[in-house]
């Protein structure tokens, strides 16, 4: 049962990270293609966005491994 729980947790975490990162990266690349001179600002915004999106999936993976290890 712990294994199933861990698999669901990691899977949903990966789905969330994938969708979130996809949206962020898509819009940033679009922005840089339109205005290449704003690259630094857009990269900074994207960096903070990617960091915030990935914080929760990492916690999900951590909890999955803790559940699996016990």
């Amino acid at each position, binding site marked *: 049962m712990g294994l199933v729980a861990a698999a669901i947790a990691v899977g949903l975490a990966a789905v969330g990270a994938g969708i979130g990162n996809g949206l962020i990266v898509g819009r940033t690349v679009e922005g840089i293609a339109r205005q290449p001179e704003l690259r630094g*600002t857009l990269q*900074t915004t994207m960096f903070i966005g990617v960091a915030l999106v990935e914080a929760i999936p990492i916690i999900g993976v951590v909890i999955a491994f803790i559940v699996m290890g016990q």
Partner: protein
Amino acid sequence: MDTFQHMITRQRKWMFYLLALLVLGWGLTPYKSVFLGLLLGSALSFYNLWLMQRKIRKLGEASGESKSVKGLGTFSRLASGALAVVIALQFEDHFHLIAVVLGLMTVYFVIMIDYLVYKG
């Protein structure tokens, strides 16, 4: 240097200061396992930060020159979180598990505080 390069340098500097403080805490206080756990988590968190900065810089350069990049390294970062927990579970008497998880989250605090302080 542009704003992104400045931010990268600042964040690395703060992470080095934090790691130095944690080493001091490990060496000078009796809470060895807590500080060792925080140190393990922060070290892997620093790796995550470095990887994220590198991949995003490459993506920015590539999209400016209309080239392509291979992924953003999301799964490497998830795997480094898993590695920290596996190490902590394997050597349970040396690493405090909650401290490892808190250590993994330090980089997000650094990023948020840096953003809030320097957003102007």
